[in-house]
Protein backbone atom coordinates (compact mmCIF):
# COMPACT_ATOMS: atom_id res chain seq x y z
CA UNK A 1 0.00 0.00 0.00
CA UNK A 2 2.74 2.40 0.94
CA UNK A 3 4.47 1.63 -2.31
CA UNK A 4 1.39 2.55 -4.30
CA UNK A 5 1.10 5.84 -2.50
CA UNK A 6 4.74 6.64 -2.93
CA UNK A 7 4.81 5.71 -6.59
CA UNK A 8 2.42 8.56 -7.19
CA UNK A 9 4.80 10.91 -5.46
CA UNK A 10 7.36 12.60 -7.65
CA UNK A 11 11.10 12.08 -7.11
CA UNK A 12 13.68 14.85 -7.13
CA UNK A 13 13.75 14.88 -10.91
CA UNK A 14 9.97 14.56 -11.19
CA UNK A 15 9.89 10.86 -12.04
CA UNK A 16 7.58 8.33 -10.41
CA UNK A 17 9.02 5.36 -8.55
CA UNK A 18 8.71 3.03 -11.52
CA UNK A 19 9.83 5.49 -14.17
CA UNK A 20 13.10 5.00 -15.98
CA UNK A 21 15.18 7.88 -17.22
CA UNK A 22 15.15 8.66 -20.95
CA UNK A 23 17.43 6.06 -22.52
CA UNK A 24 19.46 6.34 -25.68
CA UNK A 25 21.56 3.77 -27.46
CA UNK A 26 23.70 4.33 -30.52
CA UNK A 27 26.17 1.98 -32.12
CA UNK A 28 29.15 1.87 -34.48
CA UNK A 29 30.49 5.20 -33.34
CA UNK A 30 34.13 4.20 -33.20
CA UNK A 31 35.98 3.68 -36.43
CA UNK A 32 38.77 1.37 -35.26
CA UNK A 33 36.85 -0.87 -32.88
CA UNK A 34 35.17 -4.03 -34.16
CA UNK A 35 32.05 -2.97 -32.41
CA UNK A 36 31.03 -0.07 -30.23
CA UNK A 37 28.03 1.36 -28.47
CA UNK A 38 27.10 4.36 -26.43
CA UNK A 39 24.45 3.84 -23.78
CA UNK A 40 22.90 6.83 -22.13
CA UNK A 41 20.43 6.99 -19.28
CA UNK A 42 19.93 10.73 -18.96
CA UNK A 43 23.20 11.90 -17.40
CA UNK A 44 24.79 8.50 -17.05
CA UNK A 45 26.76 7.79 -20.18
CA UNK A 46 28.91 4.77 -21.00
CA UNK A 47 30.94 4.18 -24.11
CA UNK A 48 31.71 0.56 -24.92
CA UNK A 49 34.16 -0.79 -27.49
CA UNK A 50 34.71 -4.41 -28.46
CA UNK A 51 37.87 -5.74 -30.07
CA UNK A 52 38.05 -9.31 -31.23
CA UNK A 53 38.06 -12.17 -31.63
CA UNK A 54 41.78 -11.52 -31.83
CA UNK A 55 44.89 -13.54 -31.12
CA UNK A 56 46.01 -13.76 -27.52
CA UNK A 57 49.17 -15.14 -26.06
CA UNK A 58 50.39 -16.78 -22.93
CA UNK A 59 48.24 -17.62 -19.96
CA UNK A 60 45.15 -16.01 -21.47
CA UNK A 61 44.97 -18.48 -24.34
CA UNK A 62 42.37 -21.21 -23.89
CA UNK A 63 42.25 -24.06 -26.42
CA UNK A 64 38.55 -24.61 -25.78
CA UNK A 65 37.09 -21.13 -25.76
CA UNK A 66 37.67 -17.45 -26.40
CA UNK A 67 38.76 -15.57 -23.30
CA UNK A 68 36.85 -12.43 -22.38
CA UNK A 69 38.64 -9.41 -21.02
CA UNK A 70 36.82 -6.41 -19.62
CA UNK A 71 38.58 -3.12 -19.02
CA UNK A 72 36.79 -0.56 -16.92
CA UNK A 73 38.01 2.99 -17.40
CA UNK A 74 36.83 5.73 -15.09
CA UNK A 75 37.12 9.41 -15.80
CA UNK A 76 40.11 9.80 -13.52
CA UNK A 77 41.81 6.85 -15.21
CA UNK A 78 43.21 5.41 -11.99
CA UNK A 79 42.13 1.82 -11.50
CA UNK A 80 41.20 0.99 -7.92
CA UNK A 81 39.72 -2.09 -6.30
CA UNK A 82 36.18 -0.98 -7.14
CA UNK A 83 37.04 -0.85 -10.84
CA UNK A 84 38.64 -4.29 -10.70
CA UNK A 85 35.55 -5.67 -9.02
CA UNK A 86 33.32 -4.12 -11.70
CA UNK A 87 35.51 -5.73 -14.35
CA UNK A 88 35.15 -9.16 -12.75
CA UNK A 89 31.39 -8.78 -12.38
CA UNK A 90 30.84 -7.60 -15.94
CA UNK A 91 33.14 -10.23 -17.42
CA UNK A 92 31.35 -13.06 -15.65
CA UNK A 93 27.98 -11.59 -16.65
CA UNK A 94 28.91 -11.39 -20.31
CA UNK A 95 30.31 -14.91 -20.25
CA UNK A 96 26.69 -15.98 -19.82
CA UNK A 97 25.77 -14.83 -23.34
CA UNK A 98 29.01 -15.00 -25.33
CA UNK A 99 29.33 -18.27 -27.26
CA UNK A 100 33.01 -18.41 -26.45
CA UNK A 101 33.48 -21.94 -27.74
CA UNK A 102 32.95 -20.64 -31.30
CA UNK A 103 36.34 -18.93 -31.29
CA UNK A 104 38.84 -21.00 -29.34
CA UNK A 105 42.37 -19.73 -28.75
CA UNK A 106 41.27 -16.12 -29.20
CA UNK A 107 40.47 -13.19 -27.00
CA UNK A 108 37.66 -10.67 -26.94
CA UNK A 109 38.31 -7.33 -25.24
CA UNK A 110 35.52 -5.11 -24.04
CA UNK A 111 36.52 -1.62 -23.04
CA UNK A 112 34.05 0.37 -21.01
CA UNK A 113 34.70 4.07 -20.68
CA UNK A 114 32.65 5.97 -18.12
CA UNK A 115 31.76 9.25 -19.83
CA UNK A 116 29.58 10.48 -17.03
CA UNK A 117 28.36 8.82 -13.85
CA UNK A 118 24.95 9.82 -12.56
CA UNK A 119 23.88 6.59 -10.89
CA UNK A 120 23.04 3.09 -12.15
CA UNK A 121 26.51 2.99 -13.70
CA UNK A 122 26.97 -0.77 -13.56
CA UNK A 123 23.60 -1.47 -15.21
CA UNK A 124 24.36 1.06 -17.94
CA UNK A 125 27.76 -0.47 -18.57
CA UNK A 126 26.33 -3.98 -18.93
CA UNK A 127 23.68 -2.75 -21.36
CA UNK A 128 26.33 -0.86 -23.33
CA UNK A 129 28.62 -3.90 -23.41
CA UNK A 130 25.78 -6.09 -24.65
CA UNK A 131 24.94 -3.63 -27.44
CA UNK A 132 28.61 -3.35 -28.41
CA UNK A 133 28.97 -7.15 -28.59
CA UNK A 134 26.01 -7.26 -30.95
CA UNK A 135 27.58 -4.48 -32.97
CA UNK A 136 30.83 -6.39 -33.23
CA UNK A 137 29.01 -9.45 -34.48
CA UNK A 138 30.23 -11.68 -31.67
CA UNK A 139 28.09 -14.86 -31.54
CA UNK A 140 25.79 -14.63 -28.54
CA UNK A 141 23.23 -17.01 -27.04
CA UNK A 142 20.90 -14.08 -26.51
CA UNK A 143 20.74 -10.61 -25.07
CA UNK A 144 20.86 -9.51 -21.48
CA UNK A 145 19.27 -6.57 -19.80
CA UNK A 146 20.50 -4.79 -16.69
CA UNK A 147 18.51 -2.58 -14.39
CA UNK A 148 19.27 -0.68 -11.22
CA UNK A 149 16.82 -0.48 -8.31
CA UNK A 150 17.10 1.57 -5.13
CA UNK A 151 15.55 1.27 -1.66
CA UNK A 152 14.83 4.59 0.08
CA UNK A 153 15.26 5.07 3.80
CA UNK A 154 11.49 4.49 4.14
CA UNK A 155 11.78 1.14 2.41
CA UNK A 156 10.19 2.33 -0.83
CA UNK A 157 11.58 0.73 -3.96
CA UNK A 158 12.34 2.98 -6.94
CA UNK A 159 13.91 2.08 -10.26
CA UNK A 160 16.89 3.63 -12.00
CA UNK A 161 18.21 5.83 -9.17
CA UNK A 162 20.44 8.81 -9.92
CA UNK A 163 23.77 9.36 -8.17
CA UNK A 164 22.22 11.66 -5.57
CA UNK A 165 19.48 9.15 -4.91
CA UNK A 166 21.99 6.30 -4.59
CA UNK A 167 23.86 8.32 -2.00
CA UNK A 168 20.78 9.11 0.07
CA UNK A 169 19.16 5.72 -0.29
CA UNK A 170 19.66 2.92 2.16
CA UNK A 171 20.53 0.43 -0.52
CA UNK A 172 20.60 -0.14 -4.23
CA UNK A 173 20.79 -3.23 -6.38
CA UNK A 174 21.95 -3.91 -9.90
CA UNK A 175 20.12 -6.82 -11.50
CA UNK A 176 20.78 -8.53 -14.83
CA UNK A 177 18.18 -10.71 -16.52
CA UNK A 178 18.14 -12.60 -19.81
CA UNK A 179 16.44 -10.70 -22.63
CA UNK A 180 15.12 -13.59 -24.62
CA UNK A 181 11.53 -13.33 -25.77
CA UNK A 182 11.76 -15.99 -28.43
CA UNK A 183 14.30 -18.63 -27.65
CA UNK A 184 15.63 -20.37 -30.72
CA UNK A 185 18.96 -21.65 -29.51
CA UNK A 186 18.76 -25.25 -28.40
CA UNK A 187 20.11 -26.44 -25.11
CA UNK A 188 19.32 -23.38 -23.07
CA UNK A 189 17.58 -23.86 -19.76
CA UNK A 190 13.82 -24.09 -20.09
CA UNK A 191 11.57 -22.32 -17.62
CA UNK A 192 12.70 -23.37 -14.16
CA UNK A 193 10.56 -23.86 -11.09
CA UNK A 194 7.48 -22.42 -12.74
CA UNK A 195 9.24 -19.16 -13.58
CA UNK A 196 9.90 -17.98 -17.10
CA UNK A 197 13.58 -18.03 -18.10
CA UNK A 198 13.84 -14.25 -18.33
CA UNK A 199 13.01 -14.05 -14.63
CA UNK A 200 16.22 -15.80 -13.72
CA UNK A 201 18.91 -13.61 -12.18
CA UNK A 202 22.19 -13.70 -14.09
CA UNK A 203 23.89 -11.11 -11.96
CA UNK A 204 23.02 -9.34 -8.77
CA UNK A 205 25.16 -6.77 -7.00
CA UNK A 206 23.86 -5.05 -3.89
CA UNK A 207 25.12 -2.03 -2.01
CA UNK A 208 23.84 -1.19 1.46
CA UNK A 209 21.66 -3.18 3.84
CA UNK A 210 18.02 -4.11 3.31
CA UNK A 211 15.53 -6.62 4.62
CA UNK A 212 14.91 -9.83 2.72
CA UNK A 213 11.37 -8.62 1.88
CA UNK A 214 12.73 -5.40 0.46
CA UNK A 215 15.10 -7.39 -1.68
CA UNK A 216 12.23 -9.48 -3.03
CA UNK A 217 10.38 -6.27 -3.75
CA UNK A 218 13.44 -5.01 -5.63
CA UNK A 219 13.50 -8.21 -7.65
CA UNK A 220 9.86 -7.75 -8.64
CA UNK A 221 10.27 -4.10 -9.58
CA UNK A 222 13.52 -4.83 -11.34
CA UNK A 223 11.89 -7.52 -13.45
CA UNK A 224 9.04 -5.20 -14.39
CA UNK A 225 11.44 -2.43 -15.37
CA UNK A 226 13.72 -4.84 -17.22
CA UNK A 227 10.86 -5.67 -19.58
CA UNK A 228 10.78 -2.04 -20.71
CA UNK A 229 14.55 -1.85 -21.18
CA UNK A 230 14.54 -5.21 -22.96
CA UNK A 231 11.93 -3.94 -25.37
CA UNK A 232 13.93 -0.79 -25.96
CA UNK A 233 17.13 -2.78 -26.61
CA UNK A 234 15.43 -5.02 -29.12
CA UNK A 235 13.74 -2.23 -31.06
CA UNK A 236 16.96 -0.26 -31.04
CA UNK A 237 18.88 -3.26 -32.41
CA UNK A 238 16.24 -4.16 -34.98
CA UNK A 239 16.16 -0.58 -36.13
CA UNK A 240 19.85 -0.73 -36.84
CA UNK A 241 19.49 -4.11 -38.48
CA UNK A 242 16.90 -2.70 -40.88
CA UNK A 243 19.08 0.23 -41.80
CA UNK A 244 21.81 -2.25 -42.65
CA UNK A 245 19.45 -4.10 -44.91
CA UNK A 246 18.45 -0.90 -46.67
CA UNK A 247 22.07 0.07 -47.11
CA UNK A 248 22.96 -3.22 -48.74
Amino acid at each position, binding site marked *: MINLEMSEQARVDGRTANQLRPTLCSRSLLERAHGSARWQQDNTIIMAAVYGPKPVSGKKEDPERATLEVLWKTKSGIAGNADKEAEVTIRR*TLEYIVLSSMHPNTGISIILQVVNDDGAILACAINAACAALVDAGIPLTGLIVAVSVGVTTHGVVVVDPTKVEEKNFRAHVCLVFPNRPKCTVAGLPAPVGGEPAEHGIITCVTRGAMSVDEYMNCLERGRAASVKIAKFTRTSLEHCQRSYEIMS
Partner: protein
Amino acid sequence: MAVEEASGSASVVKDVASSMEVEAFRRLFPLQYIERYLDSAVRPDGRPLGRARPTDVVLGQVPTTDGSALVRLGNTTMLAGVKLELCVPSAETPDQGRIAIDFQMPPICSPHVRPGRPAEDACAINEQLSIVLASSQLLDLRQLSITSGKSAWVAYLDIYCLNADGSLLDAALLASAAALMDLQIPTVSINNDGKVQIVSSREKQDQPMVDAEEGQETKSKFVEGRSLKLGPVPVALTCMLHKKHLLADPTAEEEAVLQTVLVVVLDSPDKLISLYKPGGQVVATTSTVMDCIALTRLRLKEVHSILEEATQTHEED
Protein backbone atom coordinates in the same frame (compact mmCIF):
# COMPACT_ATOMS: atom_id res chain seq x y z
CA MET B 1 17.19 -29.81 -0.23
CA ALA B 2 15.79 -31.10 -3.45
CA VAL B 3 18.24 -33.36 -5.20
CA GLU B 4 17.07 -34.80 -8.44
CA GLU B 5 18.65 -37.11 -10.92
CA ALA B 6 21.02 -35.01 -12.96
CA SER B 7 20.93 -35.70 -16.65
CA GLY B 8 23.35 -38.60 -16.97
CA SER B 9 26.86 -37.80 -18.04
CA ALA B 10 27.96 -39.18 -21.37
CA SER B 11 27.99 -42.94 -21.39
CA VAL B 12 31.54 -42.90 -22.73
CA VAL B 13 32.71 -41.19 -19.61
CA LYS B 14 30.90 -43.78 -17.50
CA ASP B 15 32.63 -46.62 -19.29
CA VAL B 16 35.99 -45.01 -18.85
CA ALA B 17 35.20 -44.28 -15.23
CA SER B 18 34.61 -47.91 -14.37
CA SER B 19 38.06 -48.88 -15.57
CA MET B 20 39.94 -45.94 -14.14
CA GLU B 21 41.47 -45.12 -10.84
CA VAL B 22 39.59 -42.55 -8.82
CA GLU B 23 42.44 -40.06 -8.73
CA ALA B 24 42.91 -40.21 -12.51
CA PHE B 25 39.17 -39.81 -13.09
CA ARG B 26 39.17 -36.81 -10.78
CA ARG B 27 41.87 -35.08 -12.81
CA LEU B 28 40.62 -35.97 -16.27
CA PHE B 29 36.89 -35.45 -15.75
CA PRO B 30 36.63 -33.01 -12.86
CA LEU B 31 33.04 -32.08 -13.66
CA GLN B 32 31.77 -35.64 -13.93
CA TYR B 33 33.71 -36.54 -10.82
CA ILE B 34 31.88 -33.93 -8.77
CA GLU B 35 28.54 -34.59 -10.46
CA ARG B 36 28.70 -38.23 -9.44
CA TYR B 37 28.95 -37.15 -5.84
CA LEU B 38 26.22 -34.55 -6.21
CA ASP B 39 23.85 -37.13 -7.63
CA SER B 40 24.11 -39.02 -4.37
CA ALA B 41 23.64 -35.75 -2.43
CA VAL B 42 27.12 -35.77 -0.97
CA ARG B 43 30.33 -33.83 -1.59
CA PRO B 44 33.78 -35.21 -2.43
CA ASP B 45 34.89 -34.42 1.13
CA GLY B 46 31.92 -36.25 2.62
CA ARG B 47 29.83 -33.21 3.52
CA PRO B 48 26.12 -32.92 2.79
CA LEU B 49 25.47 -30.29 0.10
CA GLY B 50 24.30 -27.51 2.40
CA ARG B 51 26.88 -27.80 5.14
CA ALA B 52 29.87 -25.55 5.63
CA ARG B 53 33.27 -26.92 6.58
CA PRO B 54 34.42 -27.04 10.21
CA THR B 55 35.25 -23.52 11.29
CA ASP B 56 37.73 -22.50 13.87
CA VAL B 57 38.46 -18.99 15.17
CA VAL B 58 41.42 -18.08 17.39
CA LEU B 59 41.71 -14.54 18.68
CA GLY B 60 44.83 -12.56 19.59
CA GLN B 61 47.40 -14.51 17.58
CA VAL B 62 49.73 -11.65 16.66
CA PRO B 63 51.13 -9.62 19.57
CA THR B 64 52.42 -6.85 17.26
CA THR B 65 48.83 -5.86 16.42
CA ASP B 66 46.11 -4.18 18.47
CA GLY B 67 43.74 -6.95 17.53
CA SER B 68 44.12 -10.09 15.47
CA ALA B 69 42.43 -13.34 14.58
CA LEU B 70 43.24 -16.56 12.78
CA VAL B 71 40.33 -18.23 11.01
CA ARG B 72 40.26 -21.71 9.52
CA LEU B 73 37.41 -22.74 7.30
CA GLY B 74 38.33 -26.25 6.30
CA ASN B 75 41.69 -25.72 4.63
CA THR B 76 41.08 -22.05 3.90
CA THR B 77 43.10 -20.02 6.40
CA MET B 78 42.97 -16.27 7.00
CA LEU B 79 45.06 -14.17 9.34
CA ALA B 80 43.67 -10.74 10.10
CA GLY B 81 45.34 -8.00 12.09
CA VAL B 82 44.27 -4.50 13.08
CA LYS B 83 46.76 -1.78 13.83
CA LEU B 84 45.69 1.59 15.16
CA GLU B 85 47.33 4.86 14.31
CA LEU B 86 46.44 8.40 15.26
CA CYS B 87 45.02 10.72 12.63
CA VAL B 88 43.10 13.94 12.19
CA PRO B 89 39.50 13.24 11.22
CA SER B 90 38.26 14.63 7.95
CA ALA B 91 36.26 17.86 7.96
CA GLU B 92 33.04 16.18 6.77
CA THR B 93 33.03 13.60 9.54
CA PRO B 94 34.78 15.25 12.50
CA ASP B 95 33.45 12.73 15.03
CA GLN B 96 34.47 9.63 13.14
CA GLY B 97 37.65 7.61 12.80
CA ARG B 98 38.60 5.71 9.72
CA ILE B 99 39.07 2.10 8.73
CA ALA B 100 41.33 1.03 5.89
CA ILE B 101 40.81 -2.52 4.68
CA ASP B 102 43.45 -4.41 2.79
CA PHE B 103 42.97 -7.99 1.67
CA GLN B 104 46.11 -9.70 0.48
CA MET B 105 46.69 -12.96 -1.29
CA PRO B 106 50.44 -13.53 -0.98
CA PRO B 107 51.82 -16.11 -3.43
CA ILE B 108 52.13 -18.71 -0.68
CA CYS B 109 48.37 -19.20 -0.54
CA SER B 110 47.55 -20.73 -3.89
CA PRO B 111 49.25 -22.17 -6.98
CA HIS B 112 47.35 -19.63 -9.09
CA VAL B 113 48.82 -16.54 -7.47
CA ARG B 114 52.18 -15.40 -8.74
CA PRO B 115 54.28 -12.64 -7.23
CA GLY B 116 53.78 -9.23 -8.73
CA ARG B 117 50.61 -7.25 -9.06
CA PRO B 118 47.70 -8.30 -6.84
CA ALA B 119 45.41 -10.87 -8.39
CA GLU B 120 42.04 -9.87 -9.79
CA ASP B 121 40.30 -12.07 -7.21
CA ALA B 122 42.10 -10.37 -4.38
CA CYS B 123 40.94 -6.93 -5.59
CA ALA B 124 37.35 -8.11 -5.97
CA ILE B 125 37.30 -9.63 -2.49
CA ASN B 126 38.91 -6.52 -1.04
CA GLU B 127 36.14 -4.40 -2.54
CA GLN B 128 33.43 -6.80 -1.39
CA LEU B 129 34.82 -6.73 2.15
CA SER B 130 34.92 -2.93 2.23
CA ILE B 131 31.35 -2.72 0.98
CA VAL B 132 30.03 -5.32 3.40
CA LEU B 133 31.74 -3.67 6.36
CA ALA B 134 30.45 -0.26 5.26
CA SER B 135 26.91 -1.56 4.70
CA SER B 136 26.64 -3.45 7.97
CA GLN B 137 26.54 -1.79 11.33
CA LEU B 138 29.35 -3.89 12.71
CA LEU B 139 31.69 -1.00 13.38
CA ASP B 140 30.37 2.44 14.18
CA LEU B 141 33.23 4.70 13.13
CA ARG B 142 32.31 7.17 15.86
CA GLN B 143 33.85 4.71 18.29
CA LEU B 144 37.22 5.43 16.74
CA SER B 145 36.96 9.11 17.60
CA ILE B 146 39.10 10.53 20.41
CA THR B 147 38.28 14.23 20.40
CA SER B 148 35.81 15.46 17.85
CA GLY B 149 37.43 17.28 14.96
CA LYS B 150 40.93 17.00 16.43
CA SER B 151 42.00 13.42 16.72
CA ALA B 152 40.75 9.98 15.90
CA TRP B 153 42.01 6.48 15.26
CA VAL B 154 42.61 5.06 11.88
CA ALA B 155 42.29 1.30 11.98
CA TYR B 156 44.37 -0.54 9.42
CA LEU B 157 42.71 -3.89 8.93
CA ASP B 158 44.96 -6.23 6.96
CA ILE B 159 43.75 -9.69 6.06
CA TYR B 160 46.22 -12.24 4.73
CA CYS B 161 45.08 -15.37 3.03
CA LEU B 162 47.51 -18.11 4.05
CA ASN B 163 45.76 -20.99 2.37
CA ALA B 164 43.22 -20.45 -0.41
CA ASP B 165 40.84 -23.38 -0.63
CA GLY B 166 37.58 -21.76 -1.65
CA SER B 167 34.96 -19.50 -0.04
CA LEU B 168 37.54 -16.79 0.54
CA LEU B 169 35.06 -14.01 1.23
CA ASP B 170 33.36 -16.04 3.96
CA ALA B 171 36.64 -16.66 5.74
CA ALA B 172 37.99 -13.14 5.17
CA LEU B 173 34.84 -11.53 6.55
CA LEU B 174 34.87 -13.80 9.57
CA ALA B 175 38.56 -13.02 10.19
CA SER B 176 37.92 -9.27 9.86
CA ALA B 177 35.02 -9.37 12.31
CA ALA B 178 36.98 -11.51 14.76
CA ALA B 179 40.01 -9.20 14.59
CA LEU B 180 37.77 -6.21 15.31
CA MET B 181 36.26 -8.11 18.26
CA ASP B 182 39.77 -8.64 19.58
CA LEU B 183 40.74 -5.00 19.03
CA GLN B 184 41.87 -3.16 22.17
CA ILE B 185 42.02 0.61 21.91
CA PRO B 186 45.01 1.74 23.97
CA THR B 187 44.83 4.29 26.75
CA VAL B 188 45.72 7.79 25.57
CA SER B 189 46.51 11.03 27.33
CA ILE B 190 45.33 14.34 25.95
CA ASN B 191 47.25 17.41 27.09
CA ASN B 192 46.18 21.06 27.19
CA ASP B 193 46.86 21.63 23.52
CA GLY B 194 44.76 18.67 22.55
CA LYS B 195 47.83 16.66 21.70
CA VAL B 196 47.16 12.95 21.99
CA GLN B 197 49.70 10.45 23.17
CA ILE B 198 49.48 6.73 23.57
CA VAL B 199 50.42 5.60 27.07
CA SER B 200 51.09 2.12 28.24
CA SER B 201 49.64 1.22 31.62
CA ARG B 202 53.07 1.53 33.28
CA GLU B 203 53.80 4.98 31.88
CA LYS B 204 50.42 6.16 33.03
CA GLN B 205 51.47 5.84 36.64
CA ASP B 206 54.78 7.56 36.03
CA GLN B 207 53.52 10.47 34.02
CA PRO B 208 51.91 12.62 36.70
CA MET B 209 55.16 12.45 38.71
CA VAL B 210 57.22 13.67 35.79
CA ASP B 211 54.86 16.54 35.26
CA ALA B 212 55.01 17.45 38.93
CA GLU B 213 58.80 17.62 38.82
CA GLU B 214 58.65 20.04 35.97
CA GLY B 215 56.39 22.16 38.08
CA GLN B 216 53.75 22.44 35.43
CA GLU B 217 50.12 22.33 36.14
CA THR B 218 49.17 19.17 34.44
CA LYS B 219 45.86 18.95 32.76
CA SER B 220 46.59 15.79 30.88
CA LYS B 221 43.37 13.89 30.56
CA PHE B 222 43.38 10.16 30.24
CA VAL B 223 41.05 8.28 27.99
CA GLU B 224 40.95 4.72 29.21
CA GLY B 225 41.67 1.88 26.84
CA ARG B 226 38.67 -0.20 25.82
CA SER B 227 37.47 -2.73 23.35
CA LEU B 228 34.95 -1.84 20.69
CA LYS B 229 31.22 -2.25 21.02
CA LEU B 230 30.34 -3.98 17.82
CA GLY B 231 27.00 -4.40 16.12
CA PRO B 232 25.74 -7.73 14.85
CA VAL B 233 28.49 -9.60 13.01
CA PRO B 234 27.73 -10.05 9.29
CA VAL B 235 28.21 -13.59 8.06
CA ALA B 236 28.84 -14.53 4.44
CA LEU B 237 28.01 -17.84 2.84
CA THR B 238 29.28 -18.70 -0.62
CA CYS B 239 26.88 -20.95 -2.50
CA MET B 240 27.56 -22.71 -5.77
CA LEU B 241 24.73 -23.34 -8.19
CA HIS B 242 25.02 -26.30 -10.51
CA LYS B 243 22.09 -27.67 -12.43
CA LYS B 244 19.55 -28.08 -9.64
CA HIS B 245 22.07 -28.54 -6.89
CA LEU B 246 22.95 -25.97 -4.33
CA LEU B 247 26.27 -26.32 -2.54
CA ALA B 248 27.29 -24.27 0.45
CA ASP B 249 30.89 -23.28 1.25
CA PRO B 250 32.65 -24.75 -1.80
CA THR B 251 36.30 -25.82 -1.82
CA ALA B 252 38.69 -24.45 -4.45
CA GLU B 253 38.19 -27.62 -6.49
CA GLU B 254 34.43 -27.19 -6.52
CA GLU B 255 34.69 -23.47 -7.28
CA ALA B 256 36.91 -24.12 -10.28
CA VAL B 257 34.55 -26.66 -11.82
CA LEU B 258 31.07 -25.44 -10.96
CA GLN B 259 31.47 -21.77 -11.96
CA THR B 260 28.18 -20.21 -10.84
CA VAL B 261 28.58 -18.57 -7.48
CA LEU B 262 26.17 -16.69 -5.25
CA VAL B 263 27.31 -15.04 -2.03
CA VAL B 264 24.79 -14.05 0.61
CA VAL B 265 25.76 -11.86 3.56
CA LEU B 266 23.32 -11.53 6.48
CA ASP B 267 23.84 -9.90 9.84
CA SER B 268 20.53 -10.96 11.33
CA PRO B 269 18.07 -13.53 10.01
CA ASP B 270 16.11 -10.92 8.09
CA LYS B 271 18.70 -8.31 7.20
CA LEU B 272 20.49 -8.69 3.91
CA ILE B 273 23.85 -6.94 3.79
CA SER B 274 24.84 -8.17 0.37
CA LEU B 275 23.74 -10.58 -2.30
CA TYR B 276 26.38 -10.97 -4.92
CA LYS B 277 25.99 -13.14 -7.96
CA PRO B 278 28.50 -12.37 -10.68
CA GLY B 279 27.16 -14.07 -13.80
CA GLY B 280 27.84 -17.76 -14.31
CA GLN B 281 26.13 -20.38 -16.40
CA VAL B 282 23.13 -20.91 -14.13
CA VAL B 283 20.47 -18.25 -13.57
CA ALA B 284 19.07 -17.96 -10.06
CA THR B 285 15.33 -18.06 -9.64
CA THR B 286 13.52 -16.45 -6.74
CA SER B 287 13.27 -19.82 -5.03
CA THR B 288 17.02 -20.47 -5.41
CA VAL B 289 17.71 -17.09 -3.84
CA MET B 290 15.37 -17.94 -0.97
CA ASP B 291 17.12 -21.29 -0.51
CA CYS B 292 20.51 -19.58 -0.36
CA ILE B 293 19.22 -17.07 2.16
CA ALA B 294 17.78 -19.91 4.25
CA LEU B 295 21.15 -21.69 4.27
CA THR B 296 22.87 -18.46 5.26
CA ARG B 297 20.43 -18.06 8.15
CA LEU B 298 21.51 -21.43 9.51
CA ARG B 299 25.16 -20.53 9.00
CA LEU B 300 24.63 -17.19 10.74
CA LYS B 301 23.54 -18.93 13.92
CA GLU B 302 26.44 -21.37 13.67
CA VAL B 303 29.09 -18.68 13.12
CA HIS B 304 27.76 -16.46 15.89
CA SER B 305 28.10 -19.30 18.37
CA ILE B 306 31.61 -20.10 17.09
CA LEU B 307 32.60 -16.45 17.62
CA GLU B 308 31.10 -16.46 21.11
CA GLU B 309 33.07 -19.56 21.99
CA ALA B 310 36.27 -18.03 20.60
CA THR B 311 35.83 -14.90 22.73
CA GLN B 312 35.23 -17.01 25.80
CA THR B 313 38.30 -19.18 25.34
CA HIS B 314 40.34 -16.05 24.62
CA GLU B 315 39.18 -14.41 27.85
CA GLU B 316 39.98 -17.53 29.84
CA ASP B 317 43.57 -17.61 28.58
